């Protein structure tokens, strides 16, 4: 590991805060990036990591606080400014243009030019080739980016960042889609970048990786820095404790679900798979959820959890395998098939898959149930409003007026509105994909409470999460999903942080790297 050399700070955020509508995503955060070192940023989803990165990369401006680079205050108004200052970011979703070749990708947006008009292909190819060679990936420059593996695309992005003479390189979950060998190759690249004095910001959920690579550690929780340390005084427990915190009251621990094991499960899945182009995995996913039970699927990003729930919700056109509700086999070709069978999904990405921003809160909530309120083809507004109000009250949706646009709600209340949309269909089985993503602490506890009371009233609840604490707090039973397969099952009582983490890590990554 790194010796006790004091690396100098190259980039620094001083007291930055960022607010989105009603949520405070970052609260007076200090964060230092040291040159020639791997600066690890850790936190659960919604802790504020990506917001901080957006500020450092010039995508957004902080509400308060400044960003300093080598003792100079930066006034960044766009990603272009950040790039000019020497800050480059490689996003989790790679921004490689498949239709262009490697040289074109590396120099996209800052093409080398000769005779002040024409692209200097030769210079681009030689400089690009040199860059890739330095990264240990001598791929021919004329290769189309679309034909490259994910790992190599990532290298292209890194090369692009370095071609702009980046002094700070931000890597957001760089290994989430990589195979073990590709990840190892990436670690070598990182080591060589360190040696060249580049300050690396490394974001990942994979503890093993962080402990292997990291020199400096910063933990974010709910928009605040809750831990700062160097490799010498950081270990697994230190990270897990600070990441999750013990912030939820003891009285919220769940009453054990006592229903007996021999009744017919409300939801039963046999022989399913979640295979897509990017996810491999098992062909034989089996799962059963009883009436009144809350089952959590814990796993890292890209494990296939979302695909599994979307399949059950009829959103993947065809659910491979066999699905039974109350013992009866159902066909799942469309979302309305699922809704008719009593399965409703609260999707993971509220903005993209859930909310209709132009519609009011009321209209968003009743969206899936309009025909139920209709007589002779017209929506009966009074019935609709009454039912919407009833649910809003039951779920404690904090809105001044249900006729306001749904975007006026805070994240937690938006989530409750989507939950209300599902409940309005009187489902038997409720699926929730990351039920508290982007939701603040108070609303989290509230959502847990609501879900527990729904389960108590007889619903079967199946949710996914990438937060250990959420799995432990909410689920009666936890399944771990790794790379498209269920790899472990725990009762709530046995699911400690350690065993869950261990079960969820694609272990090959670190073993082969070590």
């Amino acid at each position, binding site marked *: 590991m790194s010796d006790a050399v004091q690396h100098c700070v190259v980039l620094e955020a001083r007291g930055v805060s960022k607010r989105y509508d009603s949520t405070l995503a970052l609260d007076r955060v200090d964060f230092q990036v040291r040159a020639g070192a791997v600066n690890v940023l850790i936190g659960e989803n919604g802790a504020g990591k990506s917001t901080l990165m957006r500020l450092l990369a010039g995508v957004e401006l902080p509400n308060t606080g400044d960003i300093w680079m080598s003792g100079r205050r930066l006034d960044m108004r766009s990603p272009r400014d950040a790039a000019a200052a020497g800050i480059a970011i490689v996003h989790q979703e790679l921004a490689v243009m498949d239709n262009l070749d490697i040289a074109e990708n590396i120099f996209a947006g800052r093409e080398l030019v000769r005779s002040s008009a024409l692209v200097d292909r030769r210079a681009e190819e030689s400089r690009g080739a040199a860059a890739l060679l330095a990264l240990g990936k001598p791929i021919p420059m004329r290769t189309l980016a679309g034909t490259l593996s994910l790992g190599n695309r990532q290298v292209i992005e890194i090369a692009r960042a370095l071609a702009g003479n980046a002094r700070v390189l931000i890597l957001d979950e760089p290994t989430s889609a990589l195979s073990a060998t590709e990840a190892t190759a990436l670690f070598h690249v990182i080591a060589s970048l360190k040696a060249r004095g580049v300050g690396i910001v490394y974001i990942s959920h994979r503890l093993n990786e962080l402990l292997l690579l990291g020199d400096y550690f910063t933990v974010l929780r709910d928009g605040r820095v809750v831990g700062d340390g160097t490799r010498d005084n950081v270990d697994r427990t230190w990270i897990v404790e600070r990441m999750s915190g013990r912030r939820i009251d003891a009285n919220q621990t769940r009453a054990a679900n006592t229903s007996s094991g021999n009744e017919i499960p409300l939801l039963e899945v046999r022989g399913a798979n979640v295979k897509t182009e990017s996810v491999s995995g098992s062909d034989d996913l089996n799962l059963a959820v009883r009436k009144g039970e809350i089952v959590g699927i814990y796993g890292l990003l890209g494990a296939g959890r979302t695909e599994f729930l979307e399949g059950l919700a009829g959103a993947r056109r065809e659910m491979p395998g066999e699905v039974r509700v109350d013992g009866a086999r159902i066909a799942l070709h469309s979302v309305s098939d*699922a809704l008719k069978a009593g399965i409703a*999904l609260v999707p993971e990405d509220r903005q993209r898959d859930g909310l209709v921003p*132009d*519609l009011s809160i009321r*209209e968003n909530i009743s969206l899936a149930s309009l025909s139920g309120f209709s007589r002779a083809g017209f929506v009966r507004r009074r019935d609709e409003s009454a039912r919407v109000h009833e649910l809003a009250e039951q779920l404690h949706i904090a809105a001044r007026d249900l006729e306001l646009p749904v975007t006026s709600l805070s994240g937690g209340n938006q989530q409750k509105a989507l939950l209300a949309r599902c409940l309005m269909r009187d489902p038997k089985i409720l699926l929730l994909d990351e039920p508290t993503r982007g939701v603040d602490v108070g609303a989290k506890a509230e959502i847990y409470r609501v879900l527990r009371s729904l389960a108590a009233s007889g619903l079967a609840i199946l949710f996914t999460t990438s937060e250990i604490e959420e799995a432990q707090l909410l689920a009666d039973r936890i399944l771990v999903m790794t790379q498209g397969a269920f790899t472990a099952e725990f009762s709530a009582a046995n699911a400690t942080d350690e065993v869950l983490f261990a079960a969820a890590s694609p272990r090959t990554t670190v073993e082969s790297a070590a």
Partner: protein
Amino acid sequence: MNDTRSISASTLLLLLKLRAVLVLVALIIVFALLSPSFLTANNLSILAKHVSITAILAVGMTFVILSGGIDLSVGSIAGLAGMVAGGMLTVGIHGHLSGAFVSICAALAVSLLVGVLNGLLVTQFGVAPFIATLGTLYIARGAALLLSQGRTFPDLAGTPEGGSTGFTALGQSFFLHVPLPVWLMLVITAATVLIAARTPFGRHVYAIGGNERAARLAGIRIDRVKVWTYCFSAVCAGLVGLIIASQLESAHPATGESFELNAIAAVVLGGTSLMGGRGSVGGSLIGACVIGVLADGLVMVGVSEFWQMVIKGVVIVLAVTVDQFQARIQSRLTAAPLSRGDTPRVLA
């Protein structure tokens, strides 16, 4: 201070929302002052007939645009519908002439067919609405020309002995001193307003335009809704073609050329976003009025045809610019009440 700012902002927002009405009133006042014959009953009646053409097209297309699509084929469908009716009334099928009612129904059925084609191309074959309806624009126009080899079907008034009279009533008759096309416009608009505001279908259209993925996950049958929007647009377009043929007592295959542009302009002037999800049917009616008043008024005032085009273009561009402005103010207003605290703090 925050309060006064948000009050003036909400007044501004209201004015912006009513901008089409304000523009309409302003235009009427200006033209009335410039031309004494503008506000005469006779001229208003002519004006209303012109407006009804654009309005029926625009109102019909509003659902398509609200759901995030576009329908470029309406002008051609109008032309085709007129030719179908004209052909059946004057030439007939195998020499057998049809009556007015049958001809009208047949013309509307053909229009509906084009609408179904539009809808299927967009939903089942994944063709972008702009391209799909651009294709049917040419197909329908070509079909209209083929029906008569490019000639006009004249004398649609028909003869009593042929049993083919009555077609002219559609475009020329009055009810309570108001031309029938104007009544049709009002009835269609009223029905469409009701559908938009009060039926599941209307709500689904807005939801699809606002967030198609979310609409799909809410169990809405997106394909079905979209096909219906194109059908509705096409039938309205067919009706317009029939009205024009009835008014002229002849069907010309070039009828309705570039009408789609007027219709789209009217919808946009009425405040409907071309991205879908936001707008209103009533707005499209007002937008059609603005376009109609502008066109007729400029003629009466004696502005040259070339300047008329420039002015129409300026008005459309201005309307869309203001639309962007309104969206920005609106989002600021809805965010404001919840972020009033001066010190940052986490709101539960």
